[in-house]
């Protein structure tokens, strides 16, 4: 290789955004993904622009770089301006259409995408990484690296902290478990907690097969994108709220009802639901899970391997290693992954060019997310608090600082004022 390369490991939303951002900044960029598809959990996700995520998406679109990924999710939205308990103006992208579109964006930007290449090791030169090693033993040279490997799984973590492997979209048995670049480089990683007996957290939603639901439910979902079905008292699920990482959905409405969203699959807004119980409810008599396949038993475990890092997303003690997505904090959501990826990829390119690393202004919703996520890593209380633009503590903070808005002109002015207009789409 040329010796001026940004290597990104992990092809989820964060890795894709980092790749796009680094490539648009002018760096030769290679993206390594262990499975056969990009987007990771984004393949079964779909909720965008709800609450503060709307503001962040609009900010990112104005900044450029990986922000263009919001155009892709808008382009394949099945429903826009959706309201569901605690959330406004959401859009729901079609999980069946988004991956090829993102792949096209990355290819057009010149990113070298390597799927089915699982990185399992690395070599170091003092404190810096010098190369990665894939499962076949091939050595991949690079100058700067982005760890976007996420925090879900691998199987051992799901066994220890959850209900075992539930065959989620990560498909560890087929493609191998997640390997953390940060961890392999010798950095001690952090684990989010939900209390002394609850390390990590279980993914907060599963997906049902559309065709397995009643015509009435499908019609409601087609028309509005949302269906809310009250639960019989004996099936309410308050105790499950405690283990959810998605605190924006840890509301009583989600315990008292089944909340469904139409993302192509039918998103079931609870970590898991025993199938025999689910099938006792009208409309769900034939229900079956689409993701995870064993969604009646549990869900994937996340946040067991977060990188300690600074405000520019540089991993502590590793000057040429950046992190993004769940790796960079207790971040929940696709929007959060994309915006952290944007900065990580951009700063990786800056590191290559010996340019000062960019710290995002906290006069933006994205900057606030990044700053708060970094501070939270420093205390046990912070590690017990998930960071999302869509609800909970951070959304309240955005409101208090008047950073949450859907007004285009306000966002225009903010991005101009902070000097971030098209900042990520220009070559350095």
């Amino acid at each position, binding site marked *: *290789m040329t010796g001026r390369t940004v290597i990104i490991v992990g092809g989820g939303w964060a890795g894709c955004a980092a790749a796009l951002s680094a490539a648009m900044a002018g760096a030769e960029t290679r993206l390594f993904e262990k499975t056969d598809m990009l987007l990771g959990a984004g393949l079964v996700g779909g909720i965008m622009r709800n609450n503060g995520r709307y503001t962040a998406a609009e900010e990112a679109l104005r900044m450029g770089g990986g922000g263009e990924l919001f155009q892709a999710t808008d382009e394949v939205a099945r429903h826009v301006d959706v309201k569901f308990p605690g959330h406004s103006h959401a859009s729901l992208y079609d999980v069946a259409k988004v991956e090829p579109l993102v792949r096209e964006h990355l290819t057009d930007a010149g990113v*070298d995408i*390597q799927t089915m290449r699982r990185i*399992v*090791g*690395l*070599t*170091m030169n003092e404190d810096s990484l010098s*190369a990665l*090693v894939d*499962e*076949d*033993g*091939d*050595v*991949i*040279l690079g100058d700067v690296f982005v760890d976007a490997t996420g925090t879900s*799984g*691998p*199987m*051992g*973590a799901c*066994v*220890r902290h959850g209900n*075992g*492997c539930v065959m989620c979209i990560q498909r*560890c*048995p087929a493609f*191998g*478990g*997640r*390997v*953390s670049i940060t*961890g*392999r*480089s*010798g950095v001690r*990683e952090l684990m989010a907690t939900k209390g002394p007996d609850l390390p990590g957290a279980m993914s907060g939603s599963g997906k049902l097969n559309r065709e397995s639901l009643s015509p009435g439910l499908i019609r409601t979902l087609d028309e509005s994108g949302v269906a809310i079905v009250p639960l019989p008292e004996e099936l309410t699920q308050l105790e499950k709220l405690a283990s959810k990482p998605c605190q924006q959905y840890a509301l009583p409405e989600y315990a008292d009802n089944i909340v469904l969203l139409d993302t192509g699959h039918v998103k079931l807004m609870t970590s898991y639901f025993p199938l025999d119980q689910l099938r006792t409810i009208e409309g769900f008599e034939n229900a079956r899970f689409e993701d995870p396949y064993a969604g009646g038993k549990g869900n994937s475990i996340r946040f*067991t*391997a977060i990188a300690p890092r600074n405000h520019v997303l540089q991993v502590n003690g590793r000057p040429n290693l950046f992190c993004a997505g769940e790796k960079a904090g207790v971040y929940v959501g696709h929007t959060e992954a994309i915006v952290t990826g944007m900065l990580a990829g951009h700063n990786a390119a800056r590191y290559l060019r010996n340019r000062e690393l960019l710290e995002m202004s906290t006069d933006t919703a994205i900057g606030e997310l990044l700053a708060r996520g970094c501070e939270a890593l420093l205390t046990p209380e912070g590690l017990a608090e998930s960071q999302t633009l869509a609800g909970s503590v951070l959304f309240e903070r955005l409101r208090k600082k008047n950073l949450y808005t859907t007004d285009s002109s306000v966002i225009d002015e903010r991005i101009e004022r902070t000097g971030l207009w098209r900042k990520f789409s220009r070559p350095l």
Partner: protein
Amino acid sequence: MPREKEIYDTRCHDTGSESCPCFLADAGQCIACPVLRGEQDCDACAWGGVCVYDSYSRGDQAHTRRYIRAPIKSEKSTAAGLHCVTVHTPRHWSAELRQPGSFLMVKPPGSEETWACPMAVFSVASSGELSTIVYRERGPKTQQLARHLKTWEVAGPYRSGLLGVRRLNRAVDCDALILTSGTGQSLLPNILRRLNDNNCSVQIALDPGMDGAAYVVQALPEFAGSLSLIRLDAEIAGCRHQSTAGIISSSSAPLVISLGSDHLHIKVGAALQRDRLWVASNNRIMVCAAGWCGACTVIRRDGSELRGCRADIAPEDVFWSGDWKGERDSR
């Protein structure tokens, strides 16, 4: 994308097999699973297609291979102490015994396991029920075997007979150079079958060893054109003398396979450049071949220890004290 270099990550040959999880998991020394070794997380998992921790925590029993009686069908001996023995083995072992690096543990009937010897399988009959072993009578163990020519006890199949075996299995459409001496040639048939299946061209330098028996030649007439009889690093009547380093430097084959003593491996390692892939016969002393006796222990460059009977490791992880210049590797 061109291969820049290669590093061989350590795995366990038995992950996901009928012998997994083994009692190394009980002992906190599982080769594959860092959690079972007492580490905090899964990060250093030597993934082999299954989660050993999952199997272990479900209470899957630790399995060890058991010795079974193996009646001997035929036996031929030479005056120089070379024995060719064909024994009955279970048909369901045959596919594994045809893999490069497969071997059996063999002992006299009724004896303690301390009398067991690892033996490469030279060939498996098409019926799948007869395995041929060629061995030289040397110490007390092989002498005991030579005295029991009606029935042996065998256990297996074992998979760790070659260091760096994944390099061999992955080699497609490439040239391979094989240096073999003595009974190291017993490993050749399975290796040559794999290379042939993968459309690799082969050059074989065969040193017949102490008694001058190139017994593999008769068994593999189709490879006669690729094979030259030589004497490595010494003079012997009827053979050309060539130096190991000379053979290696005169070949450009990217895959180099050494089948012989550790003495041969050390010379091969010293002559190889880092851009060539090396596979070598595993000569670790094995008694239990299950990981508990420790006779096969390999001490790696970083001081860590591995059980050579189970670990899938590269030759340079074993022969690192010579001139072999390995890279620093975090794994």
